[in-house]
């Protein structure tokens, strides 16, 4: 390496010699590395190729989610201005305002942000896994199975019908068993995305019939609460409901990173990925486990909220113009979608407090029509 080149290399960041067709930031930073048994500072030990558009989109989406969250915290029977809400969150304002914001409204809004992000990530993982924009956990039968699990608890196990945790556990078990069943039925020398979708749709259809039958057998009151759960709702959520979700969400950060690092390689086909040093079946199994876990947490906490997982990755991809779906942008988009949907569900229809799932299904339905029309036009 010649001297001037060395000098140029020493700068922390510079432009790439390659035209990637999009603005990039190349970061080359010194870092610690093990040299001859001891830790020393090495130049260029940390290096990144950062997509500027992607970073900006994620930043804007996070800001939008934050703004929507503050708006939702301020809306209700008692309207609070933006400043008061922010003060209350940081321990200011009157005690009354703090109670309203932090105890009554915050659990719901925090859940909307976190569950939206989890659903967005889960959708991105499943769409990458199936290499299909329709390959979301709702389509491959997970939500229907979770609903079956919840219905069994709500309707068949008397005495615990309205409590929160048994229903959540029922949904968790139902969803995971369904995912396992779909995986096993679709397995043939590894799992291919398209088979996963087809088998998922079939299992979904069967379980829908079971769900309808269960509801028809129930008495009116139980059927009503089952239907509300089945739509997916954030109504009446307390911190006690949000805590387990937050803990699991934090625990899942590392597995999600593990998957996100390998996902772009797997997007290029199994053989290419294997040739580049990815252990394909192991990675795919990890993706399924992570994707199912994230959906499972979300569904257990709030019921099957449809279409966020389906729509968020594709909408995010259209904004970032990334190659394939990306996890970070999908998470941010999922959070925005769910907070906004929840705001609409609560306040857009007067005093009718709808389950948020009804709103996401409506928005998602429009999105699906648009997606199919776009795909049809492209072919």
């Amino acid at each position: 390496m010649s001297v001037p080149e060395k000098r140029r290399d020493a700068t922390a960041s510079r432009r790439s010699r390659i035209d990637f067709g999009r603005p990039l930031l190349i970061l080359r930073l010194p870092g610690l590395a093990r040299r001859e048994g001891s830790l020393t500072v090495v130049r260029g030990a940390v290096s990144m190729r950062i997509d500027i558009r992607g970073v900006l989109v994620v930043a804007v989406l996070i800001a939008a989610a934050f703004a929507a969250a503050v708006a939702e915290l301020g809306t209700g029977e008692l309207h609070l201005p933006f400043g008061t809400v922010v003060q209350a969150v940081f321990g200011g304002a009157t005690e009354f305002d703090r109670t309203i914001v932090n105890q009554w409204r915050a659990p719901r809004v925090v859940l909307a942000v976190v569950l939206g992000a989890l659903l967005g990530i889960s959708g991105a993982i499943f769409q990458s896994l199936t290499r299909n924009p329709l390959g979301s956990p709702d389509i491959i039968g997970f939500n229907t199975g979770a609903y079956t699990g919840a219905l069994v608890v709500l309707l068949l196990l008397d005495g615990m019908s309205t409590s929160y945790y048994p229903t959540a556990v029922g949904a968790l078990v139902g969803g995971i068993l369904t995912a396992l069943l779909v995986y096993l039925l679709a397995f043939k020398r590894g799992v291919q995305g398209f088979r996963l979708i087809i088998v998922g749709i079939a299992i979904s259809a069967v379980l829908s019939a079971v769900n309808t039958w269960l509801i028809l057998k129930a008495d009116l009151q139980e059927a009503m609460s089952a239907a509300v759960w089945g739509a997916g709702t954030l109504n009446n959520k307390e911190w006690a409901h949000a805590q387990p979700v937050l803990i699991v969400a934090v625990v899942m950060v590392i597995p999600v990173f593990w998957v996100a690092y390998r996902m772009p390689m797997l997007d290029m086909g199994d053989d290419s990925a294997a040739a580049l040093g990815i252990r394909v079946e192991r990675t795919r199994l990890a993706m399924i486990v992570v994707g199912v876990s994230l959906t499972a947490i979300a569904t257990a906490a709030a019921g099957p909220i449809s279409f966020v997982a389906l729509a968020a990755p594709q909408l995010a991809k259209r904004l970032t113009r990334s190659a394939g779906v990306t996890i970070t942008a999908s998470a941010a988009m999922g959070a925005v979608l769910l907070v906004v949907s929840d705001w609409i569900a609560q306040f857009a229809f007067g005093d009718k407090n709808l389950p948020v799932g009804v709103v996401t299904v409506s928005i998602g339905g429009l999105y699906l029509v648009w997606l199919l029309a776009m795909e049809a036009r492209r072919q």
Partner: protein
Amino acid sequence: MTMNTSKSGNDGNGEMNEATMTGGAPGGSARLRARNITIGYDTRIISDGLTVDIPDGKFTVIVGPNACGKSTLLRALSRLLSPSSGEVLLDGKAIASYPAKQVARTLGLLPQSSIAPDGIRVADLVARGRFPHQKLIRQWTAEDETAVVEAMAATGVSELSARLVDELSGGQRQRVWMAMLLAQQTELMLLDEPTTYLDIAYQVDLLELCSELNRNSGRTLVAVLHDLNHAFRYADHIIAMRSGNIVAQGNPSEIVSAEMVREVFGLPCRIIDDPETGTPLVIPLARRADAARFISH
């Protein structure tokens, strides 16, 4: 397409050959070998007890009729398919015993079915070939950048770097995949039917490129090809397969004969010298009686 644009073109030529010649296999060195492997899918066995050495620093081409097991062999050699018995050795050690990324720094593969992710641009795709050299915190070093620049130059896709892969022609796309393989900077490169679906000009282009890569940098190349005349023109070493077995192997000018082609493909033919290169050229015999009469006039 020329290699003159590539900086890596002329370095390492002699020394790499010398380095690899010390491998010490009988009859020339071979870093990549299959020992008595049985390969197939589920219960269907394609090849039983196959043993083969891939000669270092040469351009090897595997030929044979459809379903003779040539792609299966290539998949086994590139550890995409693990043999039910026997083993594939890389530098004398079972290939399955290496960490996956370490193999990917030594041995690259251009598979038959690659998927360009929706909306990916050329440079991004080529850069993904650097994955085996990268770590979580070291994702884009100066070496990565140089490798990608050189790979795109060598395959003539530098001008396309900002384009969407979806918008390219089949020939351009295949060159982009070749560039990704080059960016991986492996000493062994395996190519599974790289010329399929390309028109004739692109086929020749790609084979010239492979031949240059082999000659200028001493890389070991193995390709599965359908076109016999292409195979015989560009290969240093031919492996001819039929029904899962190796029927003949060696330098094309030494092993190719009308009998060999008839035995492998069941094709009656004449072999003449290629007027351009002097390599064997297969001329299938006319089967219609009137065609033969037409020549005699």
